[in-house]
């Protein structure tokens, strides 16, 4: 089934939220692939952060707690720590991001994925995550707050 998106507009910006994913309030998405979770940052996070210059993701084999340190993205504006939305063991990281960090900006839900994680306790993690529609509302509030500060 092709990917579908919901959109939220704040000021002059349009932010996409991919349906079928789960989201943390920090704006990381989780896509289930059987017992694995592919994770990345949402369109709102990449737009509000700016052009990504570096993406440093914790290495394969790392055991992660939910909210534990997954990595950091550094843009031309800011450096952002990424709290893991799930607990588990990192199986694979997106090595394309070394040479092409701009993938996070160009395709945050696709080629800009960050890590693939073998899940410890999905039921516990899911209880702390938002469905796409819920994240859309949370993200809109975050974006409106940010717009007021400009």
């Amino acid at each position, binding site marked *: 089934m092709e990917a579908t998106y919901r959109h939220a507009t704040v000021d*002059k910006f349009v932010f996409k939220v991919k349906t079928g994913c789960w989201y943390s309030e920090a704006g990381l998405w989780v896509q289930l692939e059987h017992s694995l979770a592919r994770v990345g940052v949402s369109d709102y996070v990449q737009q509000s952060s700016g052009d990504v210059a570096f993406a440093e993701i914790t290495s394969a084999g790392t055991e992660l707690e939910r909210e534990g340190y997954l990595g950091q993205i550094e843009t031309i504006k800011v450096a952002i720590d990424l709290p893991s939305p799930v607990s588990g063991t990192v199986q694979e990281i997106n090595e394309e991001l070394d040479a092409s960090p701009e993938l996070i900006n160009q395709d945050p839900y696709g080629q800009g994925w960050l890590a693939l994680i073998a899940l410890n306790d999905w039921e516990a993690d899911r209880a702390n995550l938002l469905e796409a529609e819920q994240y859309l509302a949370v993200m809109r509030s975050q974006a409106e707050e940010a717009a007021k500060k400009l």
Partner: protein
Amino acid sequence: MPDLPEKKVGLIACSGEDLAVGTVSRMAVLQVLERLRPQETVTLCLPLFLAGEERERAFARFYPTIAIDGCSKRCAARATEKYSAQPAASLVIDDLIAQKGLPEPHGLRQLDAAGQAVAQAVANALAQEVDRLLGHKQPADIEVEAEGPGSEVEPEGLVVATCACGSGIPVAQLQVNGHQVEALALPAILDQFREMGKLANNATAGELMDAVKLYNHVPDDEAAAWHEAVLREYARTITAAGPAGNAD
């Protein structure tokens, strides 16, 4: 109304690198974006009309746009019309300099004092034109005076201007009568109708077309074909996403 970017005035500067008036165009637009009318304006890099995607080329079809050109080649006005839509207003700095007896600007990297004065004067004129296009004021005439910096009241603080190219105006491609057309704002319109739980039928198609026509010119002789294409696209998105409330 569909969830679309706020209506602002678009500013497209030529930013011509080879002439001082190109730098003037750039500095004048940045003054308006950052200081004079930060909440009311948005910009796009002119070369993105060629290097970008459909959502960038939709810029002047969505935002009433002012083209600001340095010289008579009018790259900003002509490229905007060629790739996007006719600008709502157009300003050529060389012409203004001649008409108003303004000092000749010099400097490419750094404008001289005359160049800065011209940039300020152009920025003030642009701000008034922005107000006019948004219906905020109706000045009898747009006067351009060679005034020094700070000649118009500026808001407190500086806004870091951002361009419109990151977010994009939603555009969908439709097959109409065997050829492809761009339907501005269609994805947002379809989203809205799905949220309302509208069925994919002829009655809905009529309502969809009323919304589509707010943002797109639909020729009379293609109205029926558009009606069919929009309904087909709506049915497809319902099938792909599921009706409202069914997050996949």
